[in-house]
């Protein structure tokens, strides 16, 4: 396609006339256009309705896209009408569609969550800014997962990062500013590294399209430039993915951000980075180069195991619920990167299915904490004391979500863990399976601390009073509904795991098959 078009000037790619061919573009453009609209109209009510509507639309579009990809294979969309290596191409793979589905679902549900509780530093009449930033973040994350162009990934990475810094800084606690700042520093380094990596690879291949680059890379794989480029890409993504020991920005960011922002970011941001990392490793460079020649597994595997233990151990000692959940995320991300480092179908499947399972679980749990914070005014483990009788539904939601973190059979967490163990066995590493199982016992400890507090803790003194000075009661329905939907999803997809697993498996097969183009 390159040869015939050179010299013809502008060549165009004809699109079919059906409107749904534009869905890949719409998926990102919808929130991208809605964000400045929110900013333009300066109305909180407008922004709120628009953002929720757009999030649900993106979810619908993501569903359609996923079905289409599963039925017809990769969906391509030439932006600007320019064919692949010349213009920017949207390349919706199964894995990409899967990730955008998770991102848009979590966004839609967190935006459905009544924001009454999320007291932020913004005055009420300026809340539209919050929705604007939220939509930008959503657009950025969706764009990263859907695009087939390395530089475009960087651009959307920047959009999502910048907006998430702003969102995190909105947290009520003044420490949110510092958390946002340190995330900004780390995130900018991560983004910068990614950019350097892209630059070096561009030097050696002359293209930015992922597939095109994947075809042209094998010829230059043995050069030092490519090696260094790969390293920069990987380290940059590892920062965004909070791979141990580059995770230090994460706990503060999730702890001090406004409640809904924690819920949204915890369920989505790292997951998208995970997908991009998988794309870089398996599609761009190919498993053979990454694991056989460079031996990345020897680095990533111990780091993942360390993350599993360090994250869970740290979670055990946290007094603040959100910090506890944040450290738990570091551990859970360890499971995901472990799956990636196994470099087999089962391992990658477990990582990809955990994108959904953990995204849903962790967002649900952060929303639970938001409910608790709204009623009690605190988010410490102590603040859960005795909530079992006063906020029964919220408490039960925490218990179920916690079980999913542990990986109790019947919850979504178990499905991922089981698949991960299969991956470890397929890689002939029984000890790794044992390590995974033992590490989940640590999750039992940190979850159980909270559960005991819920059902056995006795609130002391003023603790039995909520933040409005009245006795604590169940969270309002408008907050409970999205929370319970997310938590119920962990059970539904824990028992009925066929759909999630089969999609994750075809995504994994596709990614692994993409080695070397």
């Amino acid at each position: 396609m390159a040869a015939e078009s050179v010299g013809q000037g502008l060549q165009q790619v004809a699109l079919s006339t059906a409107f749904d061919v534009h869905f890949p573009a719409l998926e990102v453009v919808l929130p991208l256009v809605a964000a400045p609209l929110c900013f333009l109209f300066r109305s909180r009510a407008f922004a709120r309705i628009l953002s929720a509507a757009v999030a649900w639309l993106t979810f619908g579009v993501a569903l359609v896209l996923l079905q289409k990809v599963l039925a017809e294979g990769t969906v391509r969309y030439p932006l600007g009408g320019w064919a692949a290596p010349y213009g920017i191409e949207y390349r919706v793979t199964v894995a990409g569609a899967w990730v955008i589905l998770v991102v848009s679902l979590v966004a839609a549900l967190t935006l459905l969550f009544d924001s009454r509780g999320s007291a932020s530093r913004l005055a009420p009449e300026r809340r539209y800014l919050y929705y604007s930033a939220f939509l930008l973040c959503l657009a950025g994350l969706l764009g990263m997962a859907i695009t087939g162009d390395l530089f475009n990934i960087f651009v959307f990475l920047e959009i999502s990062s910048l907006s998430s810094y702003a969102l995190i800084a909105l947290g009520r606690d003044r420490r949110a500013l510092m958390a946002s700042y340190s995330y900004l520093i780390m995130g900018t380094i991560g983004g910068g590294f990614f950019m350097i990596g892209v630059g070096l690879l561009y030097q050696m291949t002359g293209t930015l399209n992922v597939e095109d680059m994947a075809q042209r890379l094998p010829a230059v794989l043995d050069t030092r430039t490519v090696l260094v480029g790969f390293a920069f890409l990987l380290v940059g993504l590892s920062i965004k993915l909070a791979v141990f020991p580059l995770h230090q920005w994460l706990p503060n960011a999730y702890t001090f951000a406004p409640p809904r922002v924690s819920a949204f970011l915890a369920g989505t941001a790292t997951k998208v980075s995970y997908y991009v990392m998988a794309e870089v490793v398996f599609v761009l460079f190919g498993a053979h180069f990454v694991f056989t020649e460079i031996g990345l597994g020897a680095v990533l595997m111990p780091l993942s195991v360390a993350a599993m233990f360090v994250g869970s151990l740290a979670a055990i000692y946290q007094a603040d619920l959100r910090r506890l959940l944040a450290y738990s995320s570091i551990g859970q991300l360890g499971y995901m990167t472990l799956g990636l480092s196994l470099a087999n179908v089962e391992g990658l499947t477990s990582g990809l299915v955990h994108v959904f399972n953990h995204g849903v679980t962790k967002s649900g749990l952060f929303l639970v904490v938001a409910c608790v914070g709204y009623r009690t005014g605190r988010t410490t483990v102590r603040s859960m004391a005795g909530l079992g009788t006063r906020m029964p539904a919220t408490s039960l939601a925490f218990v179920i979500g916690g079980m999913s973190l542990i990986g109790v059979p019947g919850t979504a967490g178990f499905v991922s863990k089981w698949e991960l163990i299969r991956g470890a066995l397929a890689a002939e590493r029984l000890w790794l399976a044992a390590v995974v199982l033992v590490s989940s016992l640590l999750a039992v400890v940190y979850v159980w601390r909270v559960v005991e507090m819920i059902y056995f803790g006795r609130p002391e003194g003023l603790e039995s009073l909520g933040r409005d000075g009245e006795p604590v009661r169940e969270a309002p329905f408008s907050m409970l509904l999205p929370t319970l939907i997310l938590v119920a999803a962990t059970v539904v997809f824990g028992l009925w795991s066929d759909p999630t697993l089969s999609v994750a498996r075809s995504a994994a097969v596709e990614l692994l098959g993409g080695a070397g183009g």
Partner: protein
Amino acid sequence: MADERGPVVDDEPPMRMREQIVLQVGGRLLTPFILLFALYVQFHGDFGPGGGFQAGVLFAAALVLFGLLFGVDRVQQVIPVSVSEVMIAVGVLLYAGVGVTTLLLGSAFLDYDALSAEHGQHWGILLVEAGVGIAVAATMTRLYYAFGSLHPDSEPAAGEHGE
């Protein structure tokens, strides 16, 4: 270097410049030319170096220069904060709007040829560059308002708001 910081570092650095008559006259003379140059860069981007991004920055630079010399208030009389914010959104929407238009015309997002078979590329590029220029100029101005209008005594308020 140490010597140069003398006049600037004194308290209220930007304000001090208001009293520098030479700077004021020079700035007053320069500003229209910078603005003109910004427009040139904006519309000459097809032929020479430049484009919306650089033009936007230049445009904002002119406003900033004016603001440094005559005070932010004077600039805000011309371009109020709210207008700068609106223009940010307008710029982005202009760009994205071109894309949406081409999409509604049945071509790919941002496929300018949908606008016109012959001059589509020209028009498209012109429009999106205008969007970039507006957005960048407005953002830079807004950033300047945010930073340039702050004073050491206006500490961030501690008030927190629920919704």
